[in-house]
């Protein structure tokens, strides 16, 4: 089969969640099928500025075709349009304008998809909320697979997306919670697809001692890996850990790995190491007592899966349905919804070797059972085989966009209101 992986950004050094997810999927499917990546020239997900040259190149053995972005994102326009569709009654036209402002707007990419639709058997689109996925999938919905990477944010409540979910030949969900949410907004449980998630390139033997030597950290510590951002719950993490260090026994430290866009508190037990290579990152996780995942919104936390793969327990933010659901399903992590729970759960893991070990063992088994690459590949290959077997007869109906006048009718409810109707909580049944 000839497959196209369509994603907003692509590169060996681009480590955004969905982009890394797309790269891993492309590289692993390339072992079984002919894969080509269709992406933009953008490298920055805020501006979408054209930084990489348009054209074809090869990354890790996969052919990558880049298309220019027509216009960069104007942050002020985007914010205004986002407010209009998230918080106020609006029209479908407003939502399309919001999508255009969000980007990455690349008519050349859409034109290529439309013109070359016969060249590819299946198009795999990543990230439902971006311009390329919306317009690309609408162009080739009868041979499309969608990896939505949806989080519980108001964008899921926009009216332009449910037809997209219903039209895709298959949806590869990251979690049960994501599936429940998308089923709810799509208004149907009849969405073909699987809960797949993503694997990770876990090194055979990470070296915790090497990490301790390299960074001079001799104490026991909990690690956070990811962008250090208020939106990721890091502000709350700093507050909680500050109180924990003052009020709870023990000398647990907190090590932060990742680029910071939030001031790091000056605390003797909080260490910021900045961006680390993959090898250093895995060494750090292996050296840690546990991983803390304070994010409120995640469609799937790859770093939590990596911690589990290395046998480390995870302390997750319980207000994130996906993380809480994963912690419960795997029996490999605890969660918190308040400072008291944070302190007790952190202390329980840090002070009890048997609990830490048991959670770690469960995490390792959970990762192996659900997120090892052979499992992920098998799920993708089964889905692709089914699409090939069904042929055009398996195509689903795509609702057309409203007409000129209907598109301007301001009767669409605010996306935040729609999101509020989506059932919350982990999906355990």
């Amino acid at each position, binding site marked *: 089969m000839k497959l196209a992986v369509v994603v907003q950004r692509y590169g060996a050094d681009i480590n955004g969640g969905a982009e890394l997810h797309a790269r891993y999927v492309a590289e692993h499917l390339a072992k079984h099928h002919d894969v080509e990546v269709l992406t933009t020239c953008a490298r920055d997900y805020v501006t979408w500025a054209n930084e990489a040259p348009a054209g074809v190149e090869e990354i890790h053995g996969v052919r990558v075709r880049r298309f220019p972005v027509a216009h960069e994102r104007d942050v002020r326009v985007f914010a205004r349009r986002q407010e209009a569709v998230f918080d106020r009654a609006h029209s479908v036209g407003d939502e399309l304008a919001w999508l255009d402002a969000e980007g990455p707007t690349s008519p050349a990419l859409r034109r290529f998809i439309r013109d070359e639709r016969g060249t590819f058997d299946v198009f795999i689109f990543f990230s439902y909320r971006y311009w390329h996925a919306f317009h690309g999938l609408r162009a080739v919905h009868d041979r499309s697979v969608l990896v939505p990477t949806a989080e519980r944010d108001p964008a899921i409540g926009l009216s332009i997306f449910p037809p997209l979910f219903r039209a895709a030949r298959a949806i590869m969900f990251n979690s049960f919670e994501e599936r429940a949410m998308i089923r709810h907004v799509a208004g149907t449980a009849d969405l073909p697809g699987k809960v797949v998630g993503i694997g990770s390139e876990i090194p055979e033997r990470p070296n915790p001692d090497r990490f301790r030597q390299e960074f001079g950290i001799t104490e026991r510590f909990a690690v956070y890996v990811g962008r250090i951002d208020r939106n990721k719950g890091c502000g709350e993490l700093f507050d909680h850990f500050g109180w924990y260090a003052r009020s709870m026994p023990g000398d647990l430290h907190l090590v932060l790995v990742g680029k910071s866009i939030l001031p790091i508190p000056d605390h003797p037990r909080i260490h910021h190491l900045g961006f680390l290579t993959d090898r250093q990152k895995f060494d750090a996780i292996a050296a840690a007592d546990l991983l803390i995942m304070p994010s409120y919104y995640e469609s799937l936390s790859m770093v939590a899966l990596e911690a589990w793969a290395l046998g480390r327990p995870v302390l997750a933010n319980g207000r994130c349905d996906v993380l809480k659901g994963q912690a419960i399903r795997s*029996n490999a992590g*605890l969660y918190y919804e308040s400072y*008291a729970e944070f302190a*007790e759960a952190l202390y329980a893991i840090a002070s*009890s070797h048997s*609990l830490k070990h048991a*959670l770690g063992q469960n995490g390792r088994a959970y990762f192996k059972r659900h997120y090892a690459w052979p499992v992920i590949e098998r799920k993708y290959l089964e889905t692709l085989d089914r699409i090939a077997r069904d042929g055009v007869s398996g195509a689903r109906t795509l609702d057309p966009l409203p007409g000129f006048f209907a598109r301007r009718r301001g009767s669409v409810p605010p996306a935040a209101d729609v999101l509020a109707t989506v059932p919350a909580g982990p999906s355990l049944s």
Partner: protein
Amino acid sequence: MTDFNVRSDSVDVEQIMRQIRERIRQKRGVDYTEEQIRELADAKLERFLDPSGVRSGLLEAFRRRPATPGYDFEDTALVDSDKAIVRFVRRLLSPFLKLLINSNRLISVLHMQAAINREQEERHVLYYEVIHNLVLEMTRVSIESRNLKMRLESLQGRLEFNERRARALEAVVQYKRGGHGPGEDEELASTEPQGGVDPITGGESLRTRRRRRRRGRRPQGQAEGSMAGDDASGDADGVENGRDESLQHEAGHAGSSERQTARDTHHQSAGTSSGHHEGGPDTPDPEAQ
């Protein structure tokens, strides 16, 4: 804090979280849910807050304020009517009206006023929310403060007890470290609790035991003579022995009570030292130190 001792196949994260929440409840004493806090904020503020400072019915009063009139004002409002014919005539004559007065200006101003009123209304809702949240937070803080006050009192009590105990212990340490030269006997007399009862243990003091050993080594007659001589010289031993007997009885009680609870130790050490006051002016009083 109890330790979790589990095997990987028996881990149930939900069960552990229930245990953790239970532990938090035990620590807090009372665990108020969000609903309970809201209920408290709505109905029982006077129990926690200064009623003169914040009215407990504040939110209720805010809620009960009269409904605001509709502020909608459209461009057609000036010529609108329930009756179609009137509406028609007004619309027909509206160009004539515009010749006489600048109705556009009027409409524009009224439109602006409607927008301002709407904004005010939205702001009222925000005020309501802010006040509501403030009252919630105040309730939460006052509960927290009450709990902390109780804890502080408890800590203060324990601290005072520990201080007294430390003073009493210091007295014993000085006694044990003391030399045996003649010049140091006075110092000993001033530091050792007389009457032979240890203020901490409630048992016999070293001095009492030493004196008894000395008596045991002497022959009976010598001992009596010595005692008589001692009596003649000042009757000190007789007084002390008599006191020893009575205090040993007390010390038995004191010792058993001491072993019962730490608080009792404090009580006994103070009580024992008050008994020693009769023995001499230099007898130390742990309370006084």
